[in-house]
């Protein structure tokens, strides 16, 4: 069970990062992928399955924007459900990381 919790936690963090990026503004997949790859070392290819899953779950939706260079870009934006999910996941993360930091701080 511990392993399952760990796995869920990490998976949740990736999703949380995408939700956070999108909460600051709509973005297209390449942009999200390169920012996450730089930030937390996430493989760029994994963003697409993740975005599809989030779309299936109704957390994000897409729209096309004409691009000056090349074909139109597919932008992702948070749905209302995505916004709710972001704020609840964010506070869960804050509580959790504060608790972990507490324990780490006390164990020097």
């Amino acid at each position, binding site marked *: 069970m511990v392993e399952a919790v760990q796995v869920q936690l990490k998976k949740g963090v990736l999703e949380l990062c995408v939700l956070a990026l999108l909460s600051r503004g709509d973005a297209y997949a390449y942009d999200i992928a390169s920012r996450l790859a730089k930030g937390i070392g996430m493989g*760029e290819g994994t963003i697409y399955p993740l975005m599809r899953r989030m779309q299936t779950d109704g957390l994000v939706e897409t729209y096309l924007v004409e691009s000056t260079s090349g074909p139109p870009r597919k932008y992702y934006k948070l749905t209302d459900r995505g916004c709710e999910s972001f704020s609840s996941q964010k506070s869960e993360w804050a509580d959790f990381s504060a608790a972990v930091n507490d324990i780490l701080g006390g164990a020097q």
Partner: protein
Amino acid sequence: MTRQAFLDRLRAGLRGLPTSAINDIVADYQAHFAEGVAAGRTEAEIAAALGEPDRVIRELRAEAGLKRWEEERNPSAAANAVLAVLGLGAIDVLVLLPILLPIAGVLFGLLVAAAACLGVGAVFFAAGPFFVHGAPVAAIILAGLGLISTGTCIGCLSSAASIAFVNGLVWYGRLHITILKPALQPKEIVA
């Protein structure tokens, strides 16, 4: 690997999914290559950063399989979802087989028992009075009805249990979906 090689492998690996889904997915990766090249990277660099097409394919197929199971609850969708999850390597088959097989076996046995009860019950109900002698006709017909309802009951309960069983597997598989792995092992060796 070049853009074309990556996209070809992707398209070949996704064969069998709905055409619209394949086109959608391939278009995503095509756009990714176009953006990358515009940003000054080479096709080989972009392909390397994307990771193995096979892993990407497994994840996308699993996602499509799980989505189908959520939309239509039937045995073929269930088989698809379970295979997709197993294909991810998310569930250690060797560890889980001793648990999964007996459960699946019991569920299958119950379904067969349900079908048998239904069949025998129907025969008793319809034809029992003609070939069973020495018992009141009403008792034979009631016995037939009893068997039919027992069969229905077992069938319903075991179907519900089967759905719960597949849902459980899917839930477990989703926990382990390999979206995580690249985060843990960013430097995957690319052929």
